[in-house]
């Protein structure tokens, strides 16, 4: 008996391993036997018969090997078919079971899709704008090189100084930190056309720039060294202007075009994907050769670091070289280098980072939700699984079915996620503030999508499996015992799921606080007192041709004529000339000094000081009052009068202390600057947009005859479209002048709020999304726990518990979870909100009201999520609850 058993076991194992081999052997053996028998029947002696049978069979070894191969192939094919059959069975089973719980399946899929979709949309933006900010070869080592004052940048703006040619040449010759360094210079010019001159953007580059950026002319050729040395007037068109203005005509090469007053020969066309570093820059229309002989111009510089060189190391080397270069020309360097990665120049970076964080939290909430949705389901199926196990379904088969189910859900979630991601991205692009041109080019990012799907699917599968394991751990007998389900429940599940809900609540609380802070920021920005009146206020930037308006007299004649005619235009109330229009700033670079206060430690370096030059009508036109002293009483150069901003005057001297004080901006190593006397203090005006307030000095000085570039401020008594009038007026005075644009200050102020509002809108959406998901999660847990406690509730009702008591006990357990979540969330926000302090205006990162809002909204949501479970608890019929198993 025992031997037989062992033998059978052995044989079974053997057959399993080499079944096809055995089969082949057996078949050959049978054939030889039958052939030999046939031959013997025909009269052969037994010995001869067998050898004849073998001979007729042919090459035995070789045939056997071939037959075994064929048999193995056949076997694998059959296994595959069997496997596919099972998969099909599993899939259709999963489909049927999911179909039986449509609401549950829909919520799970939708949750996954929301998480994946939101993440994909936002990460696509991040990936496009920040991770792949630049498409040059070895983009990870590409940096922009600028300079900043030795005292740093105190303006609150991203202002930088373009290095002088001298320093750039020094760096290119001597710096070891860089593989290459490419200077370029971008400027606005006018292209002569048959109609009005066309404003274009031209960029001067070295021939090596295209190697650096990995591009080639699509038509024609690049500049030669000789052409650069000889300052030959040659130009390359950009693909964009080539298509738009020249109809992609290849014959354009060799012809000449007139830019400004100079005639250039077109030698080629550069592709549209050749872009300058630094996002948001206008596209370049014309590429011109850069001549480094002109030593006194600022250059933009982009370079590629050598592998392994850090930015601080490169900065130190460049500073050392710049100092050497200055020393060689008996000067001292006032600036330090500022090396930035292209992605750091993205305007929207801080907001994007915030949104990325927010959306990651939403994904976490979604994953947590999917997790406990799956676990709740596994728990409720304990019985079904137990029955099936008892009926003989193998553990691995059950496991595989649960896994298939999770995968079906994950797949559906992923498909939905792709769709929602695409939709979300379209929405983001559609809602973007107009000045965020970068966002136009954003597309759905494949990698991001992949990662989001994997994260979502993993959480689905992982928790599906955990649930399955927990369900499987219980012995079928336990689960099948009558009443087992309704009394014992799985304690472990409950705790893990409560934990998941608490984390969802915590994440939501953090999101709500962040969103509230931003909402308050936007409200504050919109209500901010700008210090001037933006309504019905316009500015007109005028540019005169340099050659024709060289003398102040000729300029004065033009400006006077234009002003006189504008003043008689209907609706125009006031009119003024100013050097720096709203939305722009102009800085004097040097050390801000106050006479008699030279000892202070800050008076030793270089910084930016805001300056503006205004005519006698400016403050009145803008609606900026003089709060102390007077307007300029003497606008002559010799009088050197200056008006300062109230914030600086009051913070430095206190009210009334500024008048008569003398200040200047002294450039170290430069000629002595005459002291300027403060005659008046003007109210603070936030002309660069709400929210930019500073106690740094802002110096107004008298504007004489404006330059060839001037700005006219116009106040009307009603909203009017001044553009046609201005255009006609300018053309009637001088046809050669490009008709200026008319900008509305009101629209500009609205635009400055557009970005924070956009961030706020997105963050609020994500917060609502997260909150909704968390509410669904809490609802799920509460509904489950009420279902679990049906019997207990029934007993309590039977024992005389009032409706109030029952409702309290349900809501209390929900609110306890919410409060725990809110506590953790508030704690996280306490540390988290300071990260977004840069994005806030008029509200502190630890704003009490916002934190309170977070807690209140969360608890309110929790109470709402408890409504249905509570009603279900109240509807429990004690008799049925106690009787049912």
């Amino acid at each position: 008996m025992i031997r037989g058993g062992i033998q059978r076991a052995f044989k079974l194992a053997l057959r399993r391993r080499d079944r096809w081999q055995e089969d082949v052997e057996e078949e050959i053996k049978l054939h030889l036997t039958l052939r030999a028998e046939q031959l013997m029947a025909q009269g052969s002696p037994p010995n001869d018969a067998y050898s004849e049978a073998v001979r007729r069979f042919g090459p035995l070894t070789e045939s056997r090997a071939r037959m075994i191969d064929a048999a193995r192939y056949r076997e694998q094919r059959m296994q595959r078919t069997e496997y596919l059959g099972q998969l099909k069975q599993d899939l259709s089973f999963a489909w049927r079971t999911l179909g039986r719980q449509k609401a549950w399946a829909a919520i799970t899929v939708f949750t996954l899709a929301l998480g994946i979709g939101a993440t994909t949309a936002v990460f696509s933006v991040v990936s496009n704008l920040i991770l792949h900010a630049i498409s040059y070869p070895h983009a990870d080592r590409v940096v922009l090189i600028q300079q900043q004052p030795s005292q740093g940048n105190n303006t609150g703006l991203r202002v930088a100084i373009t290095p002088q040619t001298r320093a750039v040449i020094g760096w290119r010759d001597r710096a070891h930190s860089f593989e290459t360094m490419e200077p370029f210079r971008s400027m606005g010019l006018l292209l002569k056309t048959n109609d009005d001159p066309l404003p274009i953007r031209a960029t001067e580059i070295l021939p090596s720039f295209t190697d650096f950026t990995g591009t080639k002319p699509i038509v024609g050729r690049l500049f030669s060294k000789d052409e650069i040395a000889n300052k030959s007037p040659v130009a390359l068109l950009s693909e964009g202007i080539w298509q738009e203005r020249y109809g992609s005509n290849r014959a354009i090469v060799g012809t000449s075009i007139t830019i400004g007053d100079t005639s250039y020969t077109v030698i080629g066309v550069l592709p549209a994907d050749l872009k300058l570093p630094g996002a948001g820059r206008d596209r370049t229309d014309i590429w011109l050769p850069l001549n480094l002989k002109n030593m006194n111009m600022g250059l933009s510089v982009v370079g590629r670091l050598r592998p392994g060189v850090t930015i601080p190391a490169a900065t130190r080397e460049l500073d050392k070289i710049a100092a050497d270069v200055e020393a060689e020309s008996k000067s001292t360097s006032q600036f330090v280098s500022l090396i930035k990665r292209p992605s750091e120049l993205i305007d929207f970076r801080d907001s994007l980072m915030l949104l990325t964080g927010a959306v990651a939290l939403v994904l976490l909430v979604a994953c947590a939700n999917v997790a406990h949705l799956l676990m709740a389901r596994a728990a409720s199926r304990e019985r079904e699984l137990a029955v099936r196990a008892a009926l003989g379904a193998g553990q691995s088969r059950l496991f595989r079915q649960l896994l298939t189910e999770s995968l079906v859900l994950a797949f559906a979630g992923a498909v939905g996620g792709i769709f929602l991601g695409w939709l979300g991205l379209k929405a983001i692009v559609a809602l973007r503030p107009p000045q965020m041109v970068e966002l136009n080019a954003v597309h759905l990012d494949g990698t991001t999508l992949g990662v989001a799907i994997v994260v979502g699917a993993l959480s689905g599968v992982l928790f599906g499996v955990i649930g399955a394991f927990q369900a499987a751990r219980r012995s079928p007998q336990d689960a099948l015992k009558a009443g087992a389900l309704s009394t014992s429940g799985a304690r472990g599940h409950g705790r893990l799921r409560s934990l998941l809900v608490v984390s969802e609540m915590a994440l939501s609380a953090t999101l709500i606080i962040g969103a509230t802070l931003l909402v308050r920021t936007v409200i504050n920005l919109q209500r901010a007192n700008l210090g001037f009146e933006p309504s019905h206020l316009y500015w007109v930037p005028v540019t005169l041709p340099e050659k024709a308006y060289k003398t102040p007299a000729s300029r004065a004649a033009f400006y006077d004529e234009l002003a006189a005619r504008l003043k008689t235009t209907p609706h125009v109330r006031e009119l003024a000339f100013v050097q720096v229009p709203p939305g722009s700033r102009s800085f004097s670079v040097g050390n801000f000094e106050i006479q008699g206060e030279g000892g202070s430690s800050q008076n030793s370096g270089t910084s930016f000081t805001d300056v503006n030059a205004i005519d006698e009508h400016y403050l009145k036109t803008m609606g900026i009052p003089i709060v102390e002293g007077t307007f300029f009483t003497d606008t002559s150069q010799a009088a050197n009068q200056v008006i300062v901003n109230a914030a600086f005057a009051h913070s430095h001297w206190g009210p009334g202390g500024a008048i008569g004080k003398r200040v200047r901006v002294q450039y170290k190593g430069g000629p002595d600057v005459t002291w300027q006397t403060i005659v008046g203090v003007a109210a603070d005006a936030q002309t660069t947009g709400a929210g930019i307030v500073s106690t740094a000095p802002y110096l107004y000085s008298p504007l004489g005859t404006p330059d060839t570039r001037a700005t006219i401020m116009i106040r009307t008594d009603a909203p009017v479209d001044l553009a046609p009038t201005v255009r006609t007026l300018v053309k009637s005075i001088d046809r050669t002048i490009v008709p200026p644009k008319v900008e509305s200050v009101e629209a500009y102020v609205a635009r400055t709020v557009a970005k924070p509002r956009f961030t706020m809108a997105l963050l609020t959406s994500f917060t609502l999304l997260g909150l909704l998901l968390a509410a669904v999660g809490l609802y799920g847990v509460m509904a489950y726990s009420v279902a679990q406690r049906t019997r207990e509730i029934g007993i309590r009702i039977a024992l005389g518990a009032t409706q109030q008591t029952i409702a309290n006990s349900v809501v209390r357990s929900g609110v306890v979870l919410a409060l725990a979540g809110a506590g953790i969330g508030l704690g996280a926000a306490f540390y988290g909100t300071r990260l977004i302090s840069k994005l806030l205006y008029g509200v502190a990162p630890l704003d009490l009201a916002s934190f309170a809002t977070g807690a209140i909204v969360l608890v309110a949501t929790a109470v709402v999520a408890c409504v249905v479970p509570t009603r279900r608890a109240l509807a429990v019929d004690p008799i049925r609850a106690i009787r049912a198993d």
Partner: protein
Amino acid sequence: MSTTRLPVLKGTLDLLVLRALSWTPMHGFEIVSWLERAASSALDLDDSALYQAVYRLEARGLLEAEWGVTENNRRARYYKLTAAGRTYLRNETKNWMQYAETVTTILTAAKDGQPSTSPAT
């Protein structure tokens, strides 16, 4: 018994095997015996070649096999045509007939290409 043994043309063996199985399932030796009977032993073929053909056909899904018992109570693998095998046999038989007919026509044609009754030299 004929003394000349014809070699089997490449690819035709598969067809012969399928034909053998077109009425009833058989095991390997039965197929061999059937072919020998049908061809009056005129085929020059190792028995192993036949088994290889059978295995090949099975791997292609044209045949399927099952272990059964012979009249003398021996375990043997019985092969039968699948639906795909039956279709294949029908199509390939038609092709083979056409081919054979065409070749015959050409081989018996006169010099001017007209069909002739006398065999070609």
